[in-house]
């Protein structure tokens, strides 16, 4: 029996990785952790949504290396009372109470988690020195996001917990069904076909709601012709409309492929090599691939390796090239994105699906 245990332990030791290098996809918590809405881990932050109990298991959707060398992990909870929800947790590789796996262990699914009711009970694994480029959302923001998702859930089918493709049923959803050109299936990570915010959509929403961006994104007529009823919408509806706008733009630019490499040249009918874009683009919104070329855009665009990094950069570019200059989203003859200039043909069919705007 002992030898069997030893063999099993050795096997598990090979499977289980104590360090973190970005390749681990699954996590199990061996202690209580604060589940946060963003990757800000100051102890005084008010972005803690829930306390995750010992035994909580999750899939790592995204990670962010912090200035201290520790990590923020964005996980989708797979078991317990928070199953299906997405949180940021803090991970300190040297003294962490999490176990990381490259693949989901086969025994998962037979355990339950203990409930924890108080944030104060969660023991502090979190540093106070980590600073992240992303601004800390206020409690108001957390409330707005939760309210918005609850509102959307009540308006339609059950929320998209795993944010995979869900068929459209009925016409009572926030999004009208696509009649001609539906967005790519990969876009459901931003907004599902029935209109629920996916994990990437939540990131967009939260970033736009941050104090330095919200005044621009909720300003009068900010979406211009893309949302004629914009001024009649509530704050959460405005941010939701913007999230759909970014989804439509991501579809047009990259079919919602976050690693898409955008070409710079093409051959015209005469076979001549012509320039399509002055710089090579990358990701969902064709952001400048070259980090030096992005340098003058500032900290918001310093790292676009993750969806949240791309979202932060795109949101910042929109503010600096259009909204801050008194322009709306539907600018012609200026700004960064081609599909916006060709708005009527490219973006408008998608925007017209948003019932609250028309």
């Amino acid at each position, binding site marked *: 029996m002992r030898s069997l245990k030893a063999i099993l332990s050795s096997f598990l030791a090979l499977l289980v990785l104590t360090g973190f290098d970005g390749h681990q996809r699954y996590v199990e918590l061996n202690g209580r952790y604060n589940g946060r809405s963003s990757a800000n881990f100051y102890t005084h932050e008010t972005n803690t949504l829930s306390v995750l109990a010992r035994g909580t298991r999750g899939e790592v959707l995204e990670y962010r290396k912090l200035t201290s060398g520790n990590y923020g992990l964005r996980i989708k909870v797979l078991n317990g009372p928070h199953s299906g929800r997405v949180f940021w947790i803090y991970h300190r590789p040297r003294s962490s109470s999490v176990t990381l796996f490259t693949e989901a262990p086969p025994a998962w699914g037979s355990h339950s988690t203990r409930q924890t009711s108080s944030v104060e009970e969660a023991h502090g694994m979190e540093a106070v020195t980590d600073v992240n480029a992303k601004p800390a959302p206020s409690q108001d923001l957390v409330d707005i996001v939760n309210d918005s998702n609850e509102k959307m859930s009540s308006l339609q089918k059950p929320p998209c917990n795993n944010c995979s493709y869900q068929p459209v049923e009925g016409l009572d959803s926030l999004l009208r069904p696509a009649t001609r050109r539906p967005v790519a299936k990969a876009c459901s990570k931003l907004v599902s076909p029935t209109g629920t915010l996916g994990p990437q959509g939540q990131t967009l929403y939260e970033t736009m709601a941050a104090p330095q961006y919200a005044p621009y994104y909720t300003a009068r007529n900010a979406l211009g012709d893309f949302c004629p009823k914009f001024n009649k919408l509530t704050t959460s509806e405005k941010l939701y409309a913007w999230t759909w706008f970014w989804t439509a733009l991501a579809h047009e630019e990259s079919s919602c492929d976050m690693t898409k490499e955008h070409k710079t040249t093409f051959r015209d009918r005469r076979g001549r090599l012509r320039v399509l874009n002055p710089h090579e683009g990358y990701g969902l919104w064709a952001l400048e691939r070259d980090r030096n*070329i992005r340098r003058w855009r500032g900290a918001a665009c310093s790292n676009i390796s993750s969806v949240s990094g791309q979202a932060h950069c795109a949101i910042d570019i929109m503010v600096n*090239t259009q909204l801050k200059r008194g322009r709306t989203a539907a600018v012609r003859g200026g700004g960064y994105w081609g599909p916006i200039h060709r708005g009527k043909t490219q973006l408008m069919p998608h925007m017209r699906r948003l019932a609250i705007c028309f």
Partner: protein
Amino acid sequence: MFLKCKTAVVILLTFLSGSVHARQSILLEAGEYQLVSGEKHLCRNFALSQKDTLGKYITIADQYGFEVGKSRHVIESDIDPQCEFREENRFENTASETLLVRLNQEYCRAKVRSSTRSEVRLQAQRIELRHEIDGASYTCVWEKQTQ
């Protein structure tokens, strides 16, 4: 007395050092610039404020950023750990124009993956940009709107 002399020397050196490293200035006026030659979808009309013309960077047509000075930058890629980005900036001022040149390259495993070269000639009310990328190039010219 010794301390006073030392302080005076420090102040003098600081002043001189400041003069030597004073920011380079460009020969370009603020205002609305209109494309007079070149491709519209690559070179848009744009406006420059007085502040824009005095900064460490200048951005032409929302897309072409130039550092006002001579510099080199090497930075690791945030997208591919096997790659790094290199940039060289050149600055030349003559009596009638300012020339800014920027060369950007991506190196992956010691090989050039991509290369972009931008060159802009700034006169008081005229901007000429030549941009080369992956074997193709184009030129755009803007002039300041006088009214």
